[in-house]
């Protein structure tokens, strides 16, 4: 079992609401990621972080923002949710073993967001 946790698992909200999806990992990994995945589709990277105070946008344009104030915590925020934001959001982390980047991603269980 991966030690990476996402809350909430499911969220249904109205248009215009502000939401924050939480992601925490206890593995001490420096790298963390947020992916968006629609049913039957590939994962798309929306944000990533290489460490505390480091955040970058991924290839998929997103209106969300992230922060990395602590190594273990990487929350994603939508200031004003819209129906187009309805999707599955997956948080992941990766680390090193013996000094080498293992390349392996550990995923949380995901947050399924529905915006009405």
């Amino acid at each position, binding site marked *: 079992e*991966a030690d990476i946790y996402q809350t909430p698992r499911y969220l249904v909200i109205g248009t215009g609401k502000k939401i924050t999806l939480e992601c925490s990992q206890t593995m001490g990994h420096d790298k963390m*990621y947020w992916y968006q995945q629609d049913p*039957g*589709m*590939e*994962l*798309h*990277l929306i944000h*990533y972080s290489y460490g505390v105070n480091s955040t*970058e946008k*991924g*290839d998929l344009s997103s209106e969300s923002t992230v922060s990395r104030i602590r190594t273990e915590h990487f929350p994603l925020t939508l200031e004003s949710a819209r129906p187009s934001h309805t999707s599955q959001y*997956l948080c*992941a982390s990766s680390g090193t073993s013996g000094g080498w980047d*293992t*390349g*392996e*991603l*550990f*995923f*949380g*269980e*995901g947050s*399924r967001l529905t915006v009405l």
Partner: protein
Amino acid sequence: SQKIEQNSEALNIQEGKTATLTCNYTNYSPAYLQWYRQDPGRGPVFLLLIRENEKEKRKERLKVTFDTTLKQSLFHITASQPADSATYLCARGSNYQLIWGAGTKLIIKP
């Protein structure tokens, strides 16, 4: 652009047989390819990583190959079981991120 292509049609296999899934990539060979398993409504789980200079990698009933000439990776599950039913994702390493295929759904029938 770099892409990963996986068969979008579900693969139906009889229990006990070997399941073989295909992952094709475009442009130059990636430094490595990864395979993940994803169950419905859950996050992907890492299975195997194979580097460009490796022809084959094994882990228990799993085997992955990397053919840079065909620009293809094959993922095999031997002695398949109904519990192996899931969607299997292939991803290529590219700079700072992974580029993912949409996955192939594998159904193992008892």
